[in-house]
C-alpha cells in the first residue's frame, strides 16, 4: 500500500509536504517523485508504468499548477485511482484550477483542492481493503469533530453538549 505523489516541479515541494504530513499521520507509506507532463513526458510515463505494474495497492496524487496536464496524462496511463491536487494559485483569479477540472471522456482524475483532503481521500481508497487503516481514519475524523465541539464548549463556559 502506498501513495505516489507526483509533482510537476520541485517548486511544489511545500504543497507536497502538506499532503505527505497527513498521510504520515495516518501511517500510509508515501513515495515522492517529480516529473513534468509538458517537459519530460517520457520520464513521467516511465514512472507511471513502473508503479502501476507493481502489485501493491497504489493511489496517485498529482500536483501540477498553471496548466495541469499531469493529472490527465497520469490517469489515462494507470489503472490505479488518481487524485489531482493542484497547488493554490491566485494568478488570473484562480482560473488555473479549470485545467484540473475538465478532462476528456475516459480520463477521470478525481480533484481535491485541499492538500489534507487529497491525502484523506487517498487513505480512504486504500482503507477499503485495510481494516486497521479504517480505524486510523476514524480516529482522525473523530479528532476533527472534537476540535469543533471543544471550540464551541469553550465559548459556552466549558460545557459540552
Amino acid at each position, binding site marked *: *500500500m*502506498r501513495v505516489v505523489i507526483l509533482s510537476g516541479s520541485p517548486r511544489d515541494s511545500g504543497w507536497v509536504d502538506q499532503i505527505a504530513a497527513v498521510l504520515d*499521520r*495516518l*501511517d500510509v*507509506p508515501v513515495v515522492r517523485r517529480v516529473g513534468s507532463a509538458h517537459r519530460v513526458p517520457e520520464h513521467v510515463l516511465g514512472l507511471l508504468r513502473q508503479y502501476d505494474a507493481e*502489485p*501493491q*495497492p497504489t493511489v496517485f496524487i498529482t500536483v501540477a499548477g498553471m496548466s495541469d496536464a499531469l493529472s490527465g496524462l497520469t490517469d489515462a496511463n494507470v489503472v490505479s485511482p488518481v487524485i489531482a491536487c493542484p497547488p493554490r494559485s491566485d494568478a488570473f483569479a484562480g482560473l488555473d484550477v479549470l485545467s484540473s477540472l475538465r478532462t476528456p471522456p475516459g480520463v477521470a482524475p478525481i480533484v481535491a483542492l485541499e492538500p489534507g483532503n487529497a491525502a484523506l481521500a487517498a487513505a480512504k481508497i486504500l482503507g477499503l481493503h*485495510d*481494516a*486497521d487503516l479504517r*480505524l*486510523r*481514519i*476514524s*480516529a*482522525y475524523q*473523530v*479528532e476533527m469533530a*472534537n476540535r469543533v465541539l471543544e471550540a464551541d464548549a469553550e465559548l459556552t463556559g466549558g460545557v459540552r453538549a
Partner: protein
Amino acid sequence: MDSRAVLETLDLDLPDHHSGKVRESWRLPTGQRLLVTTDRISAFDRVIGTVEHKGQVLNQLSAWWFARTSDIVANHVISVPDPNALVAVDANPLPVEVVVRGRLTGSTSTSLLPRYEAGERVLYGHRLPEGLTAHGPLPEPMITPTTKETGGAHDRPVTIDEVVELGLVEPGLWTQVQKAAIDLFARGTEIAAAAGFVLADTKYEFGLGPDGELLLIDEVHTPDSSRFWAVDSMDDRIRAGLAPESYDKEPVRLALKAAGYSGSGPVPHLPEAVLADTSARYVELYERLTGLAFEPGERPIADRIAANLAPLAGQ
C-alpha cells in the same frame, strides 16, 4: 461503555500502595505483594483510556507464561486468587529492563528499523550485517537493555556492557539474566509460532527474592510487554510495504498518531471502535496462545476482586 464493565481504579485497605500505569500493588499481611492488573491502556508513556477485558487477559496470560517458563528461570508467582490479581514474592527489582528483539522493526527513534535504514550498523553494542529487510528476522535475537529511571525521568537505552560498567547489575548475575532472557525469548517464539504469531520483541523484568535468588517478575509475553504479529498476513503486508498486523498496543498508538497526538498536550478521545478492536485482539491472542477459551470474570470487577481477596487481606 458501562463503567462497571471495566476496571479503571481500585481501592483496597492495604498498606504500601504503588500505582503504575496499568497495575496497582499492595503489601499483604503475609509480606507478599498483591498485584492487580486494571483495564487501563497506556501509549506514549501516558494512560489514554480503558480496554474491556484487558486486565484479565494480561493477568491470566502472564500467569500462563510464568507456568510455562519456570524451568528456565524461577518467577515471583505465588497464586492467582482472582482473574485480575496475582500474589507474588515481594522481590527487589533489578534497575534494568531487559528488552529482547528478534526482528528489525519499530518506528520510534530508539527502534532498530529507523536507525538501520539511516545507515547505523552498530546498535545497542550489537553489529548488524548489511542487507537486512524491514520487519525481517535479525541474525539472532539481541538484548537491548534500558535503565529504569525513577521520579518521572524517561528510561534510557544502554548497551549490555554498560549495564555492568554503570554498576546496575553485578557481572555474574547479569550473565545469568542474559541467558535467561534469551532462553525465555526462544520459548516464547516457539509457542507463539505454533499459535500463528511472531514474537517480534518483548521486555522482561527481573528481581531478587528474599534469599537473593533470581526471579522473573512483572509480566511475561503479554501484548503490553511484547509485539505479536499475525503470521498469516505478514508476508503479504511486508511485500506491500506495510508493517505486520499487530496483536498488541500498536493499533492504539497509530490511532493516537492519526488523531494528531505525539505524547504531549491533551489526549484525544479515540473512537470506541479502536478500543473495542484492541479488546478483541487481546482476547484472541490469549485464546490462540493458550488454547483456552477466555471466560470473563464476574462484574462489577472491583467488587469481585475485593471478595476474592478478603481471605488474603485478613478482612
